[in-house]
């Protein structure tokens, strides 16, 4: 039963990792950009949530109403102001610029909030749980998982059933020809980054409710998101959920064997999958 519990808890944890991964996967799909600052942006969202809850006395989930649009706007501005200038055949500029961004965000957070761990207070939500066939499931992890599923379904729907998604796919296929269709790729890329950071905002706030955080943890969140993307298979939005779940389960099962092995077990699961299925478990068919 303990093992079943570990697997169930890992699955729920995987929802959070899928949220880390979804934003990363989205912008890679649209513009082949890998954002090294992604993890730090998650942490930034957590801090924005913290500030909102403290200053306005709001519940963290209500703070999403402020943090999500804020992060989306920041994403659009960041893309149009900086990142669009780095896109091209050379992978160095986007990589190094987002790396620089990562260091800037991390140190700005240190300057503003200090290195002390912080946590958002979600009241009863944090401790509420339901019993299910001998397992005790926290309401918050369940909620996180449900939100992840909903967001990924929403992204999938946006990608394949809306004009915006059509524009994303067209620009991803061929930027020049998309431009001929009246699509300004710089604007489309801006929208993709806005959407990515909106998802990141949700991920960050849920992270900040679930555990304590400090400015240095961004790199680790980037790595979890990245591992979920690669495990699930590049270009597959639902794959990020599968990847997140596998990573989450590997971590909780690893922690069950030895608490010091939690993170290591996740990395090892990732490396094993990379070794046997380099394209991930569910690569995009087309």
């Amino acid at each position, binding site marked *: 039963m303990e093992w079943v519990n570990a697997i169930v808890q890992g699955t729920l944890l995987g929802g959070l990792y899928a949220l880390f991964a979804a934003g990363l996967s989205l912008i890679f799909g649209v513009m082949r950009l890998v954002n090294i600052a992604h993890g730090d942006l998650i942490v930034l969202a957590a801090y924005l949530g913290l500030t909102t809850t403290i200053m306005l006395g709001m519940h963290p989930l209500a703070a999403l109403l402020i943090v999500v649009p804020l992060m989306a706007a920041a994403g659009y501005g960041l893309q149009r102001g900086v990142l669009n200038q780095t896109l091209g055949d050379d992978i160095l500029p986007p990589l190094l610029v987002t790396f620089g961004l990562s260091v800037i965000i991390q140190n700005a957070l240190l300057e503003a909030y200090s290195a002390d761990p912080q946590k958002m207070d979600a009241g009863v939500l944090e401790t509420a749980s339901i019993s299910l066939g001998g397992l005790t499931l926290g309401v918050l992890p369940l909620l996180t998982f449900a939100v992840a599923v909903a967001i990924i379904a929403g992204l999938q729907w946006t990608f394949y059933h809306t*004009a915006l998604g*059509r*524009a994303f*796919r*067209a620009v*991803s*296929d*061929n930027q*020049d*020809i*998309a*431009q*001929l*269709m*009246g*699509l*300004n790729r710089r604007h489309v890329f801006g929208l993709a980054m806005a959407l990515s950071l909106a998802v990141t905002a949700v991920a960050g706030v849920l992270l900040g409710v679930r555990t304590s955080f400090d400015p240095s943890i961004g790199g680790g969140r980037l790595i979890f998101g990245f591992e979920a993307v690669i495990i699930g298979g590049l270009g597959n939005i639902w794959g990020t959920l599968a990847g997140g779940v596998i990573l989450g389960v590997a971590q909780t099962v690893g922690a069950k064997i030895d608490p010091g092995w939690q993170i290591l077990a996740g990395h090892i699961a990732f490396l094993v999958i990379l070794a046997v299925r380099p394209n991930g478990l569910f690569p995009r068919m*087309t």
Partner: protein
Amino acid sequence: MHEPILQIVGLSAHYGDFQALYDIDMTVAEGEVLAIIGANGAGKTTLMWSIAGLMRNGADQVRYRGEAIGGLRADQVAERGIALVPEGRQLFPSLSVEENLIIGGQVGRDGPWSLRRVFELFPILQERRKQASTSLSGGQQQMVAIGRALMANPDLILFDEISLGLAPVIIRDIYQALPGIVGGGMSAIIVEQDITKALSVSSRIYCLQEGRVSLEGASDTVSREEISRAYFGIE
């Protein structure tokens, strides 16, 4: 002659150190069908890309309805009513046939062309509208590419090598459809290597050779000898 819809004045284009176009002058009248011929590498596609905004030029080198558009981005050019059917069709592989057409109408200009009319023109596309664009034959893909450009309801449409790589019978079908497309007052530039085809649909013809205009004339009066000279550069 009507007012020119497009005027190209002293247009030069470069790829790095390589100069692809030298000092091109060209006009297209309102409602006119113009043909451009020339050998491979003569600069025809570069010229189309320059007009469509995929290559940026000096603003005044391309004038559309009196406006200097040479420095605009392709999406801004598209909004003003110029559509390109690119060489090699260049459909979006991630989009279905129908989506490829719909995205062509993204610029949101009013006019006679709609999904329904494109399907009337090319009924096979209606049958296949949910399919992946990559699953179509070459000829059908060319129909999608033409339909996609029409969906923008352009005033000037550019066809770049629409018969390249297609079976003769398909080329015939497409050329039979052309008058129905450009008949409604739309201006057109047709880039074509098949000289007979080019002469049959156009009122005037330009020949490019090594990036320069080597011949300009009315399609019904220009002689074969003149064309051979201009095309191959044989004196």
